[in-house]
């Protein structure tokens, strides 16, 4: 045997991602997170038994972008729909993908209850501090003073309360097995995000209960920033209020590793 230089593909579009352009704005990290999810599904070899539940929000058409069976839930109700899908076919891998309006505002009861029951599903929570799809209104996670189309003078926390930290809150619930917050504003955080996605899926594959990864994500369009500035905005403004980290790693999850 002799040594040879061979050109290999070292990075390519994951197979679980459909070969279609998304409708996301340029630089929107919804696409980036999709890609990471697609990579993990490929790597875990679970594409043929995974079912995606799309939210109402910018990622409403998510089912078009994955080579997976997929359903479109009503606004905020993805965890309930996923519960229905999973309970009748526990051998399948069911995940929801939800925005901050979807999960933390209208869907508050459903997410708290899925976590409380320890529903054996995986939730990807995309926190972009804004209602992207409807054109930039205040989200539950919009930062204090943040100007949005429904807080034109800046978010007034006297009137609306402080932005809600979902990972922290959900981690409190006994049914939650794995709850972490990640970001995608640079290469390091992207890599960590991918690892968390993998762990979350593995929790579900092991039947170990409710797993959720919150991502700090960008919305260049409604933040009025370039894609790059947006990543910086995440780092400068969001990370301090929404610290990255592991909020709940149940023993059963630790044992997985």
């Amino acid at each position, binding site marked *: 045997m002799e040594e040879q230089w061979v050109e290999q593909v070292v990075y390519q579009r994951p197979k679980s991602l459909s070969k279609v352009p998304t*409708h*996301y*704005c*340029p630089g929107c990290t919804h696409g980036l997170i999709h890609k990471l999810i697609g990579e993990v599904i490929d790597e875990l070899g679970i594409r043929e038994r995974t079912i995606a539940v799309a939210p109402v929000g*910018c990622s*409403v058409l998510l089912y078009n972008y994955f080579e997976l069976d997929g359903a479109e839930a009503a606004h905020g109700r993805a965890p309930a729909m996923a519960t229905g899908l999973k309970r009748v076919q526990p051998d399948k891998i069911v995940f929801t993908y939800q925005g901050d309006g979807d999960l933390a505002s209208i869907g508050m009861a459903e997410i708290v209850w899925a976590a409380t029951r320890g529903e054996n599903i995986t939730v990807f929570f995309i926190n972009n501090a804004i209602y992207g*799809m409807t054109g930039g209104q205040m989200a539950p996670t919009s930062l204090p003073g943040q100007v949005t189309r429904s807080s034109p003078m800046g978010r007034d926390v006297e009137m609306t309360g402080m932005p809600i930290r979902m990972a922290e809150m959900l981690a409190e619930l006994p049914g939650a097995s794995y709850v972490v917050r990640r970001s995608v504003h640079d290469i390091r955080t992207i890599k960590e995000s991918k690892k968390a996605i993998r762990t979350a899926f593995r929790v579900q594959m092991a039947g170990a209960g409710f797993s959720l990864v919150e991502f700090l994500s960008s919305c260049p*369009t409604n933040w009025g920033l370039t894609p790059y500035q947006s990543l910086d905005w995440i780092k400068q403004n969001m990370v301090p209020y929404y610290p990255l980290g592991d909020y709940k790693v149940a023993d059963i999850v630790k044992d997985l590793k």
Partner: protein
Amino acid sequence: MQEEMIFSGFGGQGALFAGMVLAYAGMDSGKNVTWIPSYGPEMRGGTAHTTVIISDEEIGSPIVQRPSAALVLNNPSMEKYEPLVKEGGVLVYNSSLISITPRRTDIRYVPVPASDVANELGNVKMANMVALGALVTATGVLSLEAVIQALRDHLPESKHEMLEPNVQALRRGAELAEPVVA
């Protein structure tokens, strides 16, 4: 008289704004007017368009399928609206960006190098006003002066430093369309 116009371009090109200036001018001239944008997620990152109707009669549908005039600022808009313009209608297009060669013989084409002219005038964003000047002249829907006056009357205070350059853009556009009209 009822002129049914579509304005179309990329998100940032100001097609909607151009339509709105015309609608204001129509209103101030005592006409019936409607302005309605296309809205919704499909517009994201793609083209934005608006329909403006200026009429002496009550306006029924503010939406039209076949406009009597169209102002298009980019290739996709040209693709979409060229076939839809009514027979005998006018199509003003931004020849700086649009590479497509006209395919119809039953409408009047008004090519305007709107982006280049706007650039010359100091800001490429005024391409929409250049094209609007051309459209007004080519269709005769309103007088150019009415449009200029509308801009003066309705441009928000905060943007008043943009007023004169925009007026200039309108005038340049109108000039460029004159040969076509004549």
